[in-house]
């Protein structure tokens, strides 16, 4: 097996979006997700010497991020102190017997399965995006994820609108091919 090497100067370009999406889908807070990605990179830099080259750089960084996410949850839970479970049963006599209805699951609420499905889908899209040529992935992210308009992207990347649509077309076709089997 080929020995993998670390190249921290490329980490942000290659992995930051994937790591950020991975973390925001698990902590649901933009600022915290950003901090976690930053901490992951810093921890990666500190433990570069421990990298054996058996896993890919990306897998290694994800494993650090996973630990950071667990640490984050541990920290916020310890801040809460001893967990208290309080159930305020309705003492109002008029609504006696209604307590069960108040506590049944809301069918319109997001379930754990939906959340898991979304995390997996997000990971799958990023996996496919990483296979695209850099320019295609960049344009696709600017257009689809950040929602920039065509003129802004053209100005930022110094390309013509027709050029942009060709890039978008190639990116969409490649993404659809990559995701077809499982997700489309």
């Amino acid at each position: 097996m080929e020995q993998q090497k670390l190249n921290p100067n490329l980490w942000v370009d290659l992995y930051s979006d994937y790591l950020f999406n991975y973390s925001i889908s698990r902590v649901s807070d933009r600022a915290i997700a950003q901090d976690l990605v930053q901490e992951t990179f810093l921890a990666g830099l500190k433990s570069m010497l421990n990298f054996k080259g058996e896993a890919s750089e990306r897998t290694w960084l994800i494993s650090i991020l996973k630990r950071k996410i667990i640490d984050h949850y541990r920290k916020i839970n310890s801040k809460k102190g001893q967990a208290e479970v309080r159930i305020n049963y309705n003492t109002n006599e008029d609504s006696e017997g209604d307590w069960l209805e108040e506590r049944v699951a809301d069918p319109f609420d997001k379930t754990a399965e939906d959340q898991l499905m979304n995390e997996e889908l997000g990971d799958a899209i990023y996996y496919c995006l990483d296979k695209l040529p850099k320019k295609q992935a960049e344009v696709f992210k600017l257009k689809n994820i950040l929602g920039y308009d065509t003129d802004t992207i053209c100005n930022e990347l110094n390309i013509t609108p027709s050029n942009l649509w060709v890039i978008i077309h190639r990116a969409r076709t490649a993404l659809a091919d990559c995701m077809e089997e499982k997700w489309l």
Partner: protein
Amino acid sequence: MKKNILFISCDEAKVICDKSQYGEATLLEKIKLYLRLSYCHITRSYSKRNANLTKTIESAHLQCLQTTEKQKLKHLIKQELGQNH
């Protein structure tokens, strides 16, 4: 040629289909696309797959970092690397 005003190639139709996924196709382009969709099964299947892709991507609620946020991270890594070496 008059024919070219409304009748477009498959590739042109695909580009218009992409534009319409972002709400950026003009009315004339949409008419051209629908006309092509009525007789071209390749365009039809592309259009169906394209719409599915849009729906799937939207449902994932993807997020990514802004360019300025990436710059900050790059700067931080550079700084750390400078200190370590």
